[in-house]
């Protein structure tokens, strides 16, 4: 089979690149591990015709090929390196016709790299509404490039784009104006001799951006540095002069190809919807109120509306387990299947409604253009705490999951701001903590209304826990701001895009991709741990399990039936591997009020905190005093008696101590792995793990001692 051609989609943020990508590839998309709000590269298959497929690569939105933040680096690492596995055969530059000049800057840079390029003009309707008429045929001639008019949102103009792409793939025509600004020929020759005969503009890209490009070894970087010194070349000066020069040229082109109707009629500038909405959303008081209202609806959805599908999933899994227990004969396999595997899978599935709701809201806010207004009104506040207006998105996303949240910090240009955001993001209460909160709150907080009957007390405690996570994140960020040194100044130069109606197709892809990633990536870990745990709790060293059975039978000669088997199960658990682990750490967690059973749950949930509830149900279904009607985890825990006091185990002190512990503790392998990947150093995941664990332990200790 012939290698299928690759196309890279390039464009400014908000130019409609992702809509076009969705229109071209539909559901045939492959995503990275955790596609979040800001994505890695995405690939998909575009069918040009029968047996004529093209691989399309969607790259992060950029304004110029010179990267300013980590997410933008990806683009030159692919476009600058012909040996890269994703190096495209050609590029489609998607341009927002209502902001043509700025969008063409990027186009002219990409083309000068020597990559065959097609220009897709999007949002022509918007431009015409604003009074600009674009002569795209003339534009194509002036820029000597194939131009296709498209409406990416509605999927119009795809056939024209197909033709332009086919033509460009066939003749592989790359018009190249050479260098935007002349440099000495020896400089280019020096680079070409050392690194290969490529287009002069690509030589300059290598020269100026080699530090950000992974293709160069340390030795090659210093070679390039030497060439720079030898020719007395100043990258900053060159880039600025190049940008001005390109704009001069593009201004002339745009003047010849675009008719401005406003100027001809001398009409007053149109007051757009964006202007009107910004009056409200950026208002000193109204802006914050509106944001609070949106947050309120969002949390309402996640904590109230999502409970219906979640209860249904929970009940469904319980039903399946009961049914299996009914039809399968009692065996090790039945135990592994029901209490191990299915309980574990159920623990994953139950998160789906909340993750779906959260990503629905986050992607709606991004889609409509409102998210950048939130960054705008929050920047000053966040800056006081060593963060950045752009930190709002990671902090908000981490209410769903810290992994995509940490990945979305790539758009934060300043290294210090980004690092602090990464370190404090896991303090926000993610959806994995929610089931723990729910179970524990139900155990220790009475279900009654408070504050004039307006609020449910349980709901209030839940809300306070979320606030606690947020304020602890701010507080930690403030401390880190004092400790960490900044290499460069942070900046906040950012486009405020016009408001747009959300593309529901795009929103649903975002939800689908995130849910899929969660179920398959996080799910693997959770299910594996559930099974390991089941094994550890069902087997013990040597003959300890049989000994436990015999011991109980000897000690309680009068017992029989359910009571006896429960006693045996409890004794077995205590003597299992898991029981030994729990007992081993008991002295360390005693001051927090925890016994060895909770110890087991702490150990297992250090890899993924969502395992806690699963562990609890495994532990108590193996060892608790249960009868079938009373089988939910909540009831099992409520029935647990503290052997020392004879009172219920889960009292206020223990409940709140556990709640605080889980609110602050770093118990997520996936998050630590992501921090490692994003900071490229073990130092930061270790710091993150260390400070959060210390914080959790100390706070839980204080809470327990104060309440007991």
């Amino acid at each position, binding site marked *: 089979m012939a290698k299928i051609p690759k196309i890279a989609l390039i464009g400014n943020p908000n130019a409609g690149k992702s809509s076009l990508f969705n229109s071209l590839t539909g559901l045939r998309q492959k995503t990275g591990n955790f596609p979040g709000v800001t994505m890695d590269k995405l690939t998909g298959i575009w069918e040009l015709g029968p047996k004529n497929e093209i691989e399309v690569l969607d790259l992060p939105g950029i304004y110029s090929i010179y990267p300013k933040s980590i997410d933008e680096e990806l683009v030159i690492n692919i476009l600058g390196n012909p040996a890269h596995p994703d190096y495209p055969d050609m590029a489609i530059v998607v341009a927002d016709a209502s902001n043509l000049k700025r969008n063409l800057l990027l186009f002219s840079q990409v083309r000068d790299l020597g990559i065959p390029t097609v220009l897709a003009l999007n949002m022509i309707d918007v431009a015409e509404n604003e009074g600009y008429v674009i002569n795209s045929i003339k534009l194509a001639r002036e820029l000597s490039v194939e131009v296709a008019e498209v409406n990416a949102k509605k999927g119009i103009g795809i056939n024209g784009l197909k033709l332009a792409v086919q033509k460009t793939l066939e003749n592989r025509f790359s018009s190249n104006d050479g260098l935007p600004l002349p440099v000495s020929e020896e400089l280019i020759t020096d680079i070409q001799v050392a690194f290969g005969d490529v287009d002069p503009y690509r030589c300059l890209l290598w020269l100026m951006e080699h530090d950000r490009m992974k293709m160069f070894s340390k030795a090659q970087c210093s070679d390039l540095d030497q060439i720079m010194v030898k020719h007395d070349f100043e990258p*900053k000066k060159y880039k*600025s002069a190049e940008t001005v020069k390109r*704009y001069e040229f593009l201004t002339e082109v745009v003047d010849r190809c675009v008719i401005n109707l406003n100027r001809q009629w001398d009409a007053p500038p149109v007051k757009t919807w964006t202007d009107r909405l910004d009056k409200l959303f*950026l208002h000193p008081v109204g802006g914050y109120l509106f944001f609070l209202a949106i947050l309120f609806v969002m949390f309402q959805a996640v904590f109230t509306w999502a409970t219906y599908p979640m209860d249904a999933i929970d009940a469904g899994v319980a039903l399946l387990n009961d049914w299996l227990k009914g039809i399968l004969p009692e065996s090790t396999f039945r135990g592994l299947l029901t209490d191990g595997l299915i309980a574990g899978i159920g623990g994953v599935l139950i998160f789906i409604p909340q993750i779906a709701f959260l990503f629905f809201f986050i992607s709606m806010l991004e889609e409509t253009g409102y998210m950048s207004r939130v960054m*705008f*009104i929050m920047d000053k506040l966040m800056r006081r705490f060593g963060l950045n207006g752009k930190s709002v998105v990671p902090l908000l996303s981490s209410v769903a999951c810290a992994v995509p949240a940490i990945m979305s910090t790539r758009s934060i240009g300043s290294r210090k701001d980004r690092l602090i955001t990464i370190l404090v993001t896991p303090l926000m209460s993610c959806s994995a903590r929610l089931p723990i909160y729910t179970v524990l709150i139900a155990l220790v907080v009475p279900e009654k209304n408070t504050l004039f009957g307006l609020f449910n007390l349980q709901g209030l405690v839940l809300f306070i826990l979320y606030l606690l996570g947020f304020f602890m994140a701010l507080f930690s960020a403030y401390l880190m701001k004092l400790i960490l040194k900044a290499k460069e100044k942070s900046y906040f130069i950012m486009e*405020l895009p016009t408001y747009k109606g959300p593309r529901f197709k795009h929103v649903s892809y975002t939800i689908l991709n995130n849910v899929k990633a969660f179920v398959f990536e996080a799910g693997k870990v959770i299910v594996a741990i559930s099974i390991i745990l089941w094994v550890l709790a069902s087997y013990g060293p040597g003959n300890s399990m049989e000994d436990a059975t015999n011991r109980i039978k000897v000690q309680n000669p009068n017992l029989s039936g359910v009571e006896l088997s429960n006693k045996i199960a409890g004794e077995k658990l205590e003597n299992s591997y898991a029981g030994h682990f729990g007992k081993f750490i008991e002295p360390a967690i005693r001051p927090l009020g925890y016994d060895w059973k909770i110890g087991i749950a702490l150990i297992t949930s250090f890899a993924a905190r969502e395992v806690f509830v699963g562990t609890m149900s495994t532990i108590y279904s193996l060892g608790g005093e249960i009868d079938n009607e009373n089988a939910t985890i909540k009831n099992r825990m409520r029935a647990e008696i503290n052997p020392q006091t004879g009172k219920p185990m889960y009292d206020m002190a223990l409940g709140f101590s556990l709640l605080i512990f889980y609110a602050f503790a770093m118990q997520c392998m996936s998050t630590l792995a992501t921090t490692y990947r994003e900071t490229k150093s073990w130092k930061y995941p270790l710091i993150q793990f260390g400070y959060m664990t210390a914080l959790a332990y100390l706070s839980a200790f204080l809470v327990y001692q104060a309440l007991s």
Partner: protein
Amino acid sequence: MRTVADLGIGDHGFITGFTDEKLSLKLLEMGCLPGTEVVLTHHAPFGDPIAIKVSGYTLSMRKEEAATILINSI
């Protein structure tokens, strides 16, 4: 020297130059070219950051960044 940071809401000016070389590239790429007209459209609460209209779209930046964009004196 007058800068974009000195503008009140609705005020406008023409860019004449930059005082910070590192920021200037980003600003140029975003369409803040010498000779271009800028109009201040919004202050965030507490007066910072600000939003300007330039090259036909809205761009936000912090006040200290706006202070690096020189504009013509009135």
